[in-house]
């Protein structure tokens, strides 16, 4: 097809439209919020709620809510084609890795064994499963975007989905020590994010 013909067809395909100012945004934040609202009761329904929820779990909820919010900001930025600032690419993941280091350091000071393999295996399985529906839902939204870096977009979508799942599962996780639970959840979320980075180029290329 000649380019002039293509331009005529594309122009003819343009809908009547809405005023530029009133156009809807991509909606990653709205989707993440709805996914959270659905995942918490889903997790409670399947795994139940801990009877002894305390300050440790409250900290976990705040921690994962903040992680998800930072990742939503990064994903909204990465969904546009313009070069994203470095902080959007590596900020949330770097913050999470710093948190992992901090937990290891705190755990050593308090004599708690963090990053136990059995804890990680248990939580990774459940958080992986719980993060799947939010991951798929958010992926559908991200595919409407135009990420210049599909791999970073995938990692960030994985981070949001993992953080939502971790927040929901924090209310149930049977691991007694809050620090040990948080560290196991962090590794699980990083695994979901890594999976997102792996599938990103195939899912989010455009």
């Amino acid at each position: 097809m000649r380019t002039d013909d293509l331009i005529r067809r594309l122009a003819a395909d343009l809908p009547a439209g809405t005023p530029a100012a009133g156009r809807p945004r991509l909606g990653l934040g709205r989707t993440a919020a709805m996914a959270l609202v659905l995942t918490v009761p889903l997790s409670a329904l399947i795994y139940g709620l801990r009877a002894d929820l305390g300050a440790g779990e409250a900290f976990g909820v705040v921690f994962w809510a903040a992680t998800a919010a930072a990742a939503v900001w990064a994903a909204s930025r990465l969904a546009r084609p313009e070069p994203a600032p470095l902080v959007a690419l590596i900020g949330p993941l770097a913050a999470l890795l710093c948190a992992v280091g901090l937990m290891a350091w705190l755990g050593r000071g308090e004599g708690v064994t963090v990053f136990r393999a059995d804890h990680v295996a248990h939580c990774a399985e459940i958080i992986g499963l719980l993060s799947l529906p939010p991951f798929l839902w958010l992926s559908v939204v991200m595919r409407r975007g135009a990420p210049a870096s599909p791999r970073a977009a995938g990692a960030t979508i994985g981070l949001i989905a993992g953080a939502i799942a971790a927040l929901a599962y924090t209310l149930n996780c049977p691991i007694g020590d809050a620090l040990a639970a948080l560290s196991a959840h962090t590794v699980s979320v990083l695994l979901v994010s890594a999976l997102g980075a792996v599938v990103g180029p195939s899912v989010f290329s455009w």
Partner: protein
Amino acid sequence: MSCEDQTPDARETRWSAHMRAALGGDRRAYAELLSAIADRVRAYARARVHRAGAGAEEVEDIVQDVLVAVHTKRDTWEPTRPFGPWVDAIIRYKTVDALRRLGRRQTIVSDTLERVAETVTAPLPTRMAELPADMQRHLSVLPRRERSVVTALGIEGMSIAGCAEQFGISEGAVRVAFHRGLARLASGADGDGPPAGRRSARPAG
């Protein structure tokens, strides 16, 4: 719309206004904007595509890819942000993608050519064991002397004199064994496969 005579700021203002109008449903402004973007893509992609060893057709493919991407991803432009960096990012993404595909295609072509060259320049098989299985099967029905002579003359390219010396027979006997062998192969090829019944019809040697 001509873009070459505009400063970047003037172009930004004009393109942003056209895109806003387009999002509001102004098809004429949209067509003008797409034409201007097409010119910009050609200017950007031409040198890069030529460096990659491709021609004007590939440049036009990139132009069309970019125009379709601008159309399908137009909602990712936020009207409060500048239009130039947005469209430039799409141009860059699609050009890099096209050059990557072009590179892969050229790799496939050069690999195929290499394989063909290897096949053409490969030495012919010189021993019975190196021959294709079906040829070995056909030759195996010949008596040993005829098989040796046919292989030496017809496949290894040996001379009649060299063959006579190697097998310790006269040159006349080499010719006779060669012609008999060929005749036997021909009669086998006329039927369904090698004449298995003749394998033991004549003592080897």
